[in-house]
């Protein structure tokens, strides 16, 4: 074995220190080195199914940009980390990426994780773009200049309430199946705010808000809650349970006929429940970040084709589109400012208008919230379809008409039932 001499040890130590102290974030255009973007998203655990769309969407978006020549001649490169849907794990890997000099990050889908990033990114001089986190606190009371929501946020539920008022003016009594966590509480509070604003405006009727049924997160047995909901006078139910929980809830609600004479508005499960229940899925509406079949822009079509070619999945869900939007936002900001430095990117992102799979989006400078059009689809069972269900209706509502006013640093003022 080669002996390690004192001289060699000193030389290698000094060399390592020198290499590590070098700042890799230099001006774009001075080098052809790839621009590294960090993707911190759940790649294992219960939310892996969402993280996989973020991962694939980000890879497809970066491939397309790199094939077109990159950003100012430099290719983009992605560095993935698994946040396991755990805020502590997420902040740990985000710090690790920051330590590697990767200050531009995205991929967050959980509200708690996005809320944890505010002070972290501010202290460690990084930027994070969330890809689906729904809490209103992100751009209101917990606003941080270093965190941007490049997708639909709080106002998606307001758009869903507006659509209900337009489509179902007679369904004026509402309750909710709300999981006991930040996302669930946000969904209910904002949806109620939307109902109380749009029903009187559009139908001239005051909606009746029935106290929501709060369910434990990760519950395996919803039967008590289902009978509770069935006893209420509500003709409309908003569901905020997610993923496997929602599939369990929908399945267990079938024998009780909970959805037979009621309108079901699901917050954002997209195809998750339908994929699980197939022909057993109840007819319902759901919010989606991006419905590929209804977006015919060249950006959407190219992205969809590349996504199918890469993954073989013909029905990608909207989180893939949110990842595309995040990559597009960074690419546009870097192209605009010519730098990858945090301060320059934050300045470039504020007020930025950029092209995405759902069309053009503009980031509101005051609170870092993107204004985008909101999409909703109606899903119903279809025994004749390969997948056991079909999308039977689609609605797009312009974001500008439903977005709440910007109040960075202050809590959002919500309408509450009297």
């Amino acid at each position, binding site marked *: 074995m080669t002996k390690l001499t004192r001289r060699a040890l000193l030389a290698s*130590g000094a060399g*390592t*220190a020198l290499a*590590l102290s070098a700042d890799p974030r230099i001006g774009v255009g001075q080098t052809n080195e790839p621009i590294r973007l960090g993707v911190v998203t759940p*790649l*294992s655990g219960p939310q*892996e199914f969402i993280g996989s769309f973020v991962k694939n969407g980000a890879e497809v978006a970066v491939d397309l940009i790199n094939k077109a020549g990159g950003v100012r001649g430099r290719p983009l490169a992605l560095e*993935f*980390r*698994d946040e396991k849907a*755990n*805020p*502590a794990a997420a*902040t*740990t*890997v985000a*710090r*690790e*990426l*920051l*330590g*590697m*000099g990767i200050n531009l990050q995205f991929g967050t889908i959980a*509200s*708690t994780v996005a*809320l*944890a990033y*505010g*002070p*972290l990114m501010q*202290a*460690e001089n990084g930027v994070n773009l969330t890809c689906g986190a729904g809490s209103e606190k992100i751009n209101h009371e*917990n606003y941080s200049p270093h965190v941007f929501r490049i997708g639909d946020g709080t106002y998606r539920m307001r758009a869903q309430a507006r659509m209900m008022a337009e489509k179902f003016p007679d369904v004026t009594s509402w309750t909710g199946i709300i999981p*006991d*966590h*930040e996302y669930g509480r946000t969904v209910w509070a904002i949806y109620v705010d939307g109902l109380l604003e749009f029903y009187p405006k559009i139908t001239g009727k005051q909606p009746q808000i029935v106290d929501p049924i709060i369910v434990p*997160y990760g519950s395996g047995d919803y039967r008590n809650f289902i009978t509770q909901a069935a006893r209420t006078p509500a003709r409309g139910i908003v569901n905020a349970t997610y993923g496997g929980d929602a599939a369990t809830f929908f399945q267990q609600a079938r024998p009780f006929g909970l959805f037979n004479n009621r309108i079901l508005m699901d917050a954002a499960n997209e195809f998750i429940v339908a994929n699980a229940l197939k022909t057993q899925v109840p007819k319902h509406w759901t919010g989606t970040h991006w419905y590929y079949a209804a977006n015919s822009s060249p950006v959407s079509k190219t992205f969809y084709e590349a996504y199918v070619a890469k993954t073989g999945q013909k029905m990608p869900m909207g989180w893939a589109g949110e990842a595309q939007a995040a990559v597009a936002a960074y690419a546009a900001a870097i192209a605009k400012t010519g730098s990858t430095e945090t301060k320059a990117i934050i300045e470039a992102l504020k007020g930025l208008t950029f092209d995405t799979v759902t069309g053009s989006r503009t980031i509101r400078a005051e609170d870092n919230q993107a204004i985008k059009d909101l999409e909703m689809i109606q899903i119903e069972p279809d025994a004749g379809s390969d997948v056991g269900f079909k999308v039977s209706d689609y609605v797009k509502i312009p974001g500008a008409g439903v977005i709440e006013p910007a109040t960075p640093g202050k809590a959002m003022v919500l309408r509450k039932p009297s």
Partner: protein
Amino acid sequence: MTRSPALRFLLVLGLLTGAALLLPLVANRGIVFLAGVVAINVVLGLAFNLLFSTAGLLSFGQATFSAAGAYAVALLLLRVPEIPFLVALGAAAATGAAIATAIGLVALRRTEGVYFAVLTLAFAELVHVVIAKTSFFGRNDGLTGIPRPRIGPIDLADGQAYYVFVILVTALLIACLWWVTHSRLGRSFRAIRLDPMRAAFLGIDVRRRRLEAFAVSGACAAAAGGLMGPLTSIVSPDLAHWGESTKPILFTLLGGAGHFWGPLVGAVVFSGVEYATRSLAGASDLITGGLLLAVVLAIPGGLLGLAALVVRRLRRRERPATVTDAAAEGARP
């Protein structure tokens, strides 16, 4: 090498602390952050081992104490920002000791062995549910935006100041745990572990000593947990999850339960494996778990146990030669 155990301990602790303090000079801030987490984990492992190897108590609920400390500091820093940080840390340790005493009073009254272990697990789950359901603790979302405090003129938010603070406090906690382990109190803990009946016959109040061991372990774990909030800027109910309670057990088994430094070796190796496999999403937990299983099954004495075995064998190989040489020397006229 010195023969005094205290001096030997201080030498090792000094070397480890020095190495940890020099880390920011050669590693990026991500690694330095992880080193801070490892330092806290080391104390959690050592606090568990005080119970397990010294007092003979198997606790499955250690996360209760670290989470209690983390929440105590987080709440104080967020709601009473003018409180001196050292007072907040002291409050965290006191909270840990109080909760440990309360749980111990119930759990140690009639149970021991596996029943005691299961009861600690039940209490831990109760605490986890209470945290996750109480608005005061931020429910499932936890508390975010925990600031890095000041200590007098020193702003711990500056550069690596908080990391240095974490290293110094964890070194102090390690020294406390070593002192307890080797003190008269520690010897009475060991006497109870070896033979509680004989210990009681010799006049040792077995229940009281076990309660003291539980309280000391809880206080140290809570003080270490209290360091976590300002480090990560978030505390969440996950900290009190039973999965967190298994980590100190794993560190101890991996490093070697029979050695004071065993949990330290375990925590460092565990974190190293986790870090090396971090980009292998999904497979990471499998690899870490598989390696742990292999080490625990193949080397029951842990890594330090294996090291000690190797050293003993090497010495045994050297010894006959020395004896022959000595005999030859003695045979000379």
